[in-house]
């Protein structure tokens, strides 16, 4: 059975072109870019060239503004902790309730060490309120960290406006965005619409480069201290020997994504939309989370009322289909997704969410296959559910009316 991979917000297949671009730097040009002999100049040039290409693709003014890291989590830690460290007189941070844990947990850690953190709520579609954002800005605000696109729902935040409002209020506030899910999928122009963004994180493995490489854009003049110390690499802003093959791969992956972005994303959006419509037509009592918000073209997050997500994933997996869920049972904790809770998804549906996320390697046949099996998978579990009336194929009259008691 062919595997249908529909979990591209978790990670992606490495593009063959990217793999090709990396090969020489394992066994042939393996030199440390910091070394003095001639062959090492070659690898140093590879890193410099990658930096230049990535800077150009993102609209950065200077290649030096791109720091290479090991992953987006490191980029986020560096951005948030580095900004806090460099601005010790300010003690307030603004973020949102729906950030990835790589931002949310770092902010909570700051909170535990005495910082004041505002976690902005979202509405039922996953949108932020610009008014609430403006009211949260304070004289002692040091950092705003708001993701560009949400990993679970695909909802896109207006980073352009949020960063402008931040800088018009006080240019000394550092603005960071976690763009891990959007780089390569949405236009990111740090010289244009994103000209007020100081720090921007992303990683390779969401855009068909390998796991283990990421980047942090640091606008010239931004006050921040390094997170990784112990070496002079990256102009002493991120210590550690450069991961030459992966850096070469990251640059190739971003080139590929940007060269084909409009065509690829239009095609991917059609796949997603077709699946979304089919699910809405064929399965009763479903809701598409973030349906009316601006969304990534590749992401579909649906909640099926009265069933539990893990049982759906397990059956999908038995059909060779890879997807993910915000259900508590799949998270390793007992709490369902903090993102869906922040959206106020009713508790009859929050455990029954499934996320399908596509990439350029998905096909119409993939969608056909999901459409063929998914409605039956939901029906199978509803047959077992004490909240579903199988004769009428509707929820039981009392379902969801119980109070929160055992």
């Amino acid at each position, binding site marked *: 059975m062919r595997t249908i991979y529909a979990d591209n917000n978790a990670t992606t297949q490495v593009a063959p072109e990217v793999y090709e671009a990396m090969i020489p730097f394992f066994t042939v040009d393996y030199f440390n870019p910091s070394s003095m002999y001639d062959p090492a100049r070659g690898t140093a040039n590879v890193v410099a060239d990658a930096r230049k290409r990535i800077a150009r693709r993102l609209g950065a003014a200077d290649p030096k503004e791109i720091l290479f890291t090991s992953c987006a989590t490191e980029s986020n830690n560096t951005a948030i902790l580095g900004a806090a460290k460099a601005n010790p007189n300010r003690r307030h941070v603004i973020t949102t309730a729906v950030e990835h844990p790589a931002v949310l947990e770092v902010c909570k850690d700051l909170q535990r060490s005495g910082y*004041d953190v505002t976690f902005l709520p979202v509405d039922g579609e996953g949108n932020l309120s610009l008014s609430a954002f403006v009211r949260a800005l304070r004289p002692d605000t040091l950092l705003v960290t708001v993701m560009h696109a949400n990993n679970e729902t695909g909802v896109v935040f207006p980073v352009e406006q949020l960063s402008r409002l931040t800088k018009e209020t006080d240019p*000394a506030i550092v603005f960071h965005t976690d763009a891990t899910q959007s780089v390569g999928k949405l236009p990111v122009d740090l010289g244009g619409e994103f000209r007020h963004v100081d720090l921007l994180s992303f990683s390779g493995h969401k855009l068909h480069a390998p796991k283990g490489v990421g980047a942090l854009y640091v606008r010239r003049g931004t006050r921040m201290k390094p997170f990784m110390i112990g070496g002079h690499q990256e102009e002493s802003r991120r210590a550690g020997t450069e991961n030459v093959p992966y850096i070469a791969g990251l640059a190739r992956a971003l080139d590929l994504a940007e060269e084909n972005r409009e065509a690829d994303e239009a095609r991917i959006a059609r796949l997603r939309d077709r699946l979304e419509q089919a699910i809405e037509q064929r399965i009763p009592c479903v809701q598409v989370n973030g349906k009316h918000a601006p969304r990534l073209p590749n992401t579909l997050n649906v909640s099926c009322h009265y069933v539990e997500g893990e*049982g759906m994933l397990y059956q999908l997996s038995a059909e060779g289909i890879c997807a993910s869920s915000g259900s508590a049972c799949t998270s390793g904790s007992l709490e369902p997704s903090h993102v869906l809770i922040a959206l106020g998804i009713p508790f*009859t549906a929050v455990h029954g969410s499934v996320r399908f996320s596509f990439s350029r390697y998905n096909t119409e046949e993939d969608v056909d296959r999901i459409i063929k099996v998914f409605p039956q998978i939901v029906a199978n579990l509803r047959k*077992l559910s004490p909240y579903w009336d199988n004769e009428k194929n509707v929820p039981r009259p009392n379902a969801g009316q*119980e109070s929160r*008691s055992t």
Partner: protein
Amino acid sequence: MAWEYSEKTKQLFMAAVHGEPGTHLGEIEDPDGFGEHGSIVCGDAMRFTFRVKRHPTDPAQDVIVEAKYLTFGCTSAIAASEALCIMIEEGGYTPIQALKVQNSDIVKFLGGLPDQKIHCSVMGAEALESAVFNWAQRRGVDLEKLGVDIHAEEQAEGRIVCKCFSLSEPYIRRKIKELNLRTIPETTNAIKAGGACMSCHHVPGGLQDILDDTWGKDKDSLRIVPATNLRSVPGRLVEPVESRSPEQLSLSPYQFSKKVEKAIDQYVRPLLVKDGGDLEIVDIKDALIYCRLGGACAGCAGANQTLKMMVERTLKDMVDQRIRVIAV
């Protein structure tokens, strides 16, 4: 986190969702015993029903002949429900004998469960117990007199310790003893208590206190200080050292905002309303006025220009030269 289920668990789950013959999906109409445990809020819930072959004279000797379930929950919750029904039917038990089926028996039948899924087996055992209680009421069997300790009703009473899963102190105390739970992680894995917001872990009367009370306090062990204790005092004022606003405005913030609103009402809004537009003041921070154009002006191409040129100019002239208008 990939699935670490036993073959037996996977097989029972797939058989159940495909409704294969011999599976126990469903609800017995007019059952002799009816029990529920869990709720959709917690992420799993089970309805368990059974039918007995009635003993002509002594109801206590009724024998369970059929058991069914409806379960909302994950793969292992459904497999545990199947397992429970199979064990009950194959055992040929009286309802009182059936109470001997413990969650550990269900785990054993399934060939093991991952630690964080143990609560699925506990749900089965609790639903069974509640169904037996229900059978006893229907059949007029006095369980207490027979020396059977039944707890199905205790959940309704007692102080709630774990608010996320609505678990009461008597229930948690009993389960800690029954299942020999020694630590908070063990307690969470078995009965979910403390598994979501975690705020009940180290508060007075919380999980650690109940554990200490049950097993005695281990004085040598390191107490983990909950991170929340390190949080600064809420409401503590943080003095901003750099002040970024222009010099202190001479008016109080209240007087200032009133003056801004008045100027907008008198000079700005009438002009906008004439064209079907409107203006909302979102916030005022010192001399920064955050505004949003509404009505016909919202989203119009010249909106920001209008704000900057017209509104800011007017407010500068009428209120204070230091004012800046920011479009939201």
